[in-house]
């Protein structure tokens, strides 16, 4: 049977090995403690299948700690070059993030601008009047009159800067409407004359 005397004290050592429940002050490990810790390490390594044929010497840890003690090896101060490289690296990271953010904002602004202009243009299409266009007011530039290019529709080489298909459609629609109205007006006048003639005839 297992001996569970002083179990609390041993339990704490086990927890200490796991890095849990560390006592205040510097650790003091007896030879017995180190032996336990060696066994626990071996158990863990076996369970994790870490044991290889290339075995460490049984006194590996002890000889390493002796070397540290004898050669008075101490932890060195933080390597400044590493700190600098880390700070440069972090600056690069920040710069990359900021650049990426700016690029995203620029793309978003462009898309928004295109959307707004497109929306406005689309909505404005119906209200565009057939009045004189901006191009026709430009007048002569050097020796060329831009407006003159638009008026010569017979030429196949003409440059139609301000021609709009919707203008053509609306003009033809207006013409049809006008003709209808003219026809109605003619009919109305004819009816009136026809009625006047009939009335006059009946009176006679």
């Amino acid at each position, binding site marked *: 049977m*297992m001996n569970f005397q002083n*179990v609390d004290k*041993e*339990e704490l050592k*086990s*927890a*200490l*090995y*796991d*890095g*849990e*429940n*560390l006592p205040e002050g*510097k*650790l*003091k*490990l007896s030879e017995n403690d*180190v032996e*336990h*810790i*060696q*066994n*626990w*390490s*071996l*158990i*863990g*390594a*076996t*369970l*994790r*299948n*870490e*044991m*290889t*044929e*290339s*075995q*460490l*010497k049984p006194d*590996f*840890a002890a*000889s*390493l*700690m002796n*070397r*540290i*003690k004898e050669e008075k*090896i*101490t*932890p*060195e*101060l*933080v*390597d400044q070059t*590493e700190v600098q490289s880390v700070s440069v690296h972090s600056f690069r990271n920040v710069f990359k993030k900021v650049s990426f953010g700016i690029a995203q904002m620029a793309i978003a602004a462009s898309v928004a601008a295109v959307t707004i202009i497109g929306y406005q243009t689309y909505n404005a299409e119906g209200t565009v009047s057939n009045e004189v266009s901006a191009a026709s007011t430009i007048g002569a530039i050097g020796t060329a009159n831009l407006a003159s290019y638009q008026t010569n529709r017979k030429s196949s080489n003409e440059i139609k800067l301000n021609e709009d298909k919707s203008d053509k459609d609306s003009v033809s629609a207006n013409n049809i409407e006008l003709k209808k109205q003219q026809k109605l007006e003619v009919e109305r006048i004819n009816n009136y004359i026809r009625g006047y003639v009939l009335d006059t005839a009946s009176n006679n």
Partner: protein
Amino acid sequence: MASDENLQKASSDEALVKRVQQGDVSAYNILVIKYQHKVAQIISKFVGNSADVNDVAQEAFIKAYKAINNFRGESSFYTWLYRIVVNSAKTYLESNSKRKNHIDVDSEEFQSIDAQGVLTSRESPDRIIESQELQQVILSAMKELPEELRQAIMLREVEGMSYEDMAGLLQIPIGTVRSRIFRARQFIEERMSRFAGK
């Protein structure tokens, strides 16, 4: 079995590392004992014989100790140590390739002579077999463990879980977790000591 990822979960090493940074050498002793087998396993993938594995492992642990103040807890201690170990092994390989054709027969590696008068490695087959048998003892003891103790030791050693995480997972107090892990270790240790005293 255990993966490196699982080992990285063990964040409780940070407390021990802080102790080392504050000048507590014993805390480093615990870390060395804890990771010595894993470090040897990594080095043995680069280096052939056991004597060199020991040397490279010692150099790696010395480098890690000197640079311990550079550890800022951005990764787990094991991840940080792993990089040092791999770099040490690579440095060894580079220097070893330069003296590839020069074999020092006086080195510790070749200190015994067999019956035919041929220099042999110091690595004892008996020691290897003994080690393998010890591993079998540990695995057999695991099978004999009560279920709750086996579960506790596996979650700690294989899954690398902290006591707090285990308490949450198993719905038991941390004190019970601590007790179960210790009892499992104690049980296996007893089997190991029986094997050693046979």
